[in-house]
């Protein structure tokens, strides 16, 4: 049966071999090796295993290999671009109704669209947002939340310029425990981490968190 000392020794060995042990653990392994001559073979096998794993490393990829990969990648880019998603052909809804109902159907559709436009406009006015603030492809969902440093203002030129690099906009702003939290929407969702880091580096924010959907 393994003693607890032997168990500890065996579990520490890989890290001893990799030079990743604390001073205390390292000293324990050394003492154990001094006391138990047979343990040296276990260390030898660990070294062999480590060397075998390290020996698997290949040479750096040749230029030809890199070029082959780049060609493959380019091909996937072309395929992605040419494979536009196929839209299902919508069934003509008029076929569901008798022909004499067409004028009333059209009138209803126009009324519905007008109503929705009016509602949308009222909502923008209520929030005091100008429609020009919105970028073309922003989805209106926050990608990250940042906590502003006390001396910074969300409407300062430097802060807005940092957002502008990623065509990001502030969706809303709330104060929690005396700290201003801003919810930000990026035009491209994958820019959110970089924007978060940039704002940190700028010293404008204390921290940031990415939002998942």
């Amino acid at each position, binding site marked *: 049966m*393994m003693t607890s000392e*032997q168990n500890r020794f065996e*579990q*520490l*060995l890989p*890290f001893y071999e990799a030079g990743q042990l604390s001073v205390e653990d390292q000293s324990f392994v050394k003492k154990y090796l001094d006391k138990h001559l047979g343990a040296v073979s276990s260390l030898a096998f660990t070294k062999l295993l480590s060397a075998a*794993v390290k020996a698997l490393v*290949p040479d750096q990829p040749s230029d030809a290999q890199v070029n082959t990969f780049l060609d493959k990648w380019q091909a996937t880019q072309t395929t992605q671009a040419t494979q536009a998603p196929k839209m299902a052909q919508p069934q003509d809804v008029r076929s569901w109704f008798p022909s004499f109902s067409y004028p009333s159907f059209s009138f209803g559709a126009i009324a519905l669209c007008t109503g929705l436009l009016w509602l949308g406009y009222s909502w923008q006015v209520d929030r005091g947002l100008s429609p020009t603030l919105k970028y073309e492809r922003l989805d209106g969902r926050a990608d990250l939340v940042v906590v502003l440093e006390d001396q910074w203002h969300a409407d300062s030129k430097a802060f807005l310029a940092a957002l502008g690099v990623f065509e990001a906009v502030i969706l809303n702003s709330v104060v929690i425990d005396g700290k201003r939290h801003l919810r930000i929407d990026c035009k491209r969702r994958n820019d959110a981490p970089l924007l978060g880091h940039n704002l940190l580096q700028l010293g404008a924010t204390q921290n940031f968190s990415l939002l998942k959907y």
Partner: protein
Amino acid sequence: MSDISLLEILELLRRVSAQDQRAVEKIYRHYYGALFVFIRLRVSDDGAVQELANDTFLVAFKQPERFRGESSFKTWLFGIAKNLTNNWLRAQKTQPLASSVSDDSFLDAVADDSWSVFDQIDSKQVRQIVHKCLRLLPPTQSEALYWVFFEEESLQSVSQRLGCPEGTIKSRLFHGKLKVADCVKRRLLGMGVSQ
């Protein structure tokens, strides 16, 4: 090999999204070697390893925005590699062999001076056998061996990277080592090398 900083990799991926070939090449050259070893621990055919490594990069570059900086890029990339390798092995119907060795029997063996069986054949030959045996390990164990022996990461770092307790990592390493040792020993005995 040092990892590219998070900030730099996010910028590179942004450029990949914009179809910047130089960014693709930089990431490919930087991670290819490590990725090759990671896959090679489980797949014997070098051609297949190369294909799997390339496919890993293609998957990563297809939707680079899926990497959101919540883990290191290497962990994320190797996660893709692990899935692709699992699928490939499943398609090849290659299953890791279950080990028949018990902890005690291995310890008896390593504590025994006759373990010098390795001295009887040249180290290159032993290494080849070890490589074959490494591929029989379950993914969790070969992964732990990779991060500790190849990347030389600390226990704490590997534990964070793989998202499991330090005790689990120690146990995976220990059992991985037992299985490889058992496999190597059996193969050597099969070659007529006496204890």
